[in-house]
């Protein structure tokens, strides 16, 4: 089961990466924000982000206006 779970995280992580195209320059355009319609999708994306054990992670929750 843990391996299946890890596999799911890996696929979700790849999906998240593909949704957040990285600009090469600071003004190189505006990538699309990943949007999840279901709360569970958001949780899975956040969990896959936090499952990355190699880095220090800063999570920021903001209102856009």
């Amino acid at each position: 089961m843990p391996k299946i779970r890890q596999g799911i995280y890996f696929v979700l992580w790849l999906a998240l990466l593909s949704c957040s195209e990285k600009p090469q320059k600071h003004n190189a355009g505006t990538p699309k924000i990943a949007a999840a319609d279901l709360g569970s999708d958001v949780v899975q994306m956040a969990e896959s982000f936090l499952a990355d054990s190699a880095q220090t992670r800063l999570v920021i929750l903001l209102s856009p206006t």
Partner: protein
Amino acid sequence: MVQSDILAKINSSQLSVFVIWLPIMGSDSYQHAQQAQTLLFDSRARHLWDGRLALAQGYRRILPLGAECKFAWDVYLLYRPGGKRFRYTPIGDGKKGWTPPAPDFWMHQLNCMTKEQYLDINVLRAAIEKML
């Protein structure tokens, strides 16, 4: 502020940033988030629109916010290297929900909170640098 005082000053690839945009104000929308993300344009930053406030509610449950704070937002959460897991836990009224892992350090800019842990960008940057 985060862009100029943190991301521009910390050059490490060991830092990763997840920005979660929330519909807190009545006028907030995905389109507004799409525009606002340009303020945090660092390639280490990933952006997500949490239209159902799932994470705002989840973090509300684990952070010691004031009773008047309905959601966790305008908060800055720091995690040391090491995998973290969400937990599926009771959230009241016989329901269960996904609860995020507690951060190792956090600050806020909420009016519904005391000034303790109110965001000081220099303190936050120092905390990040210490964890890298």
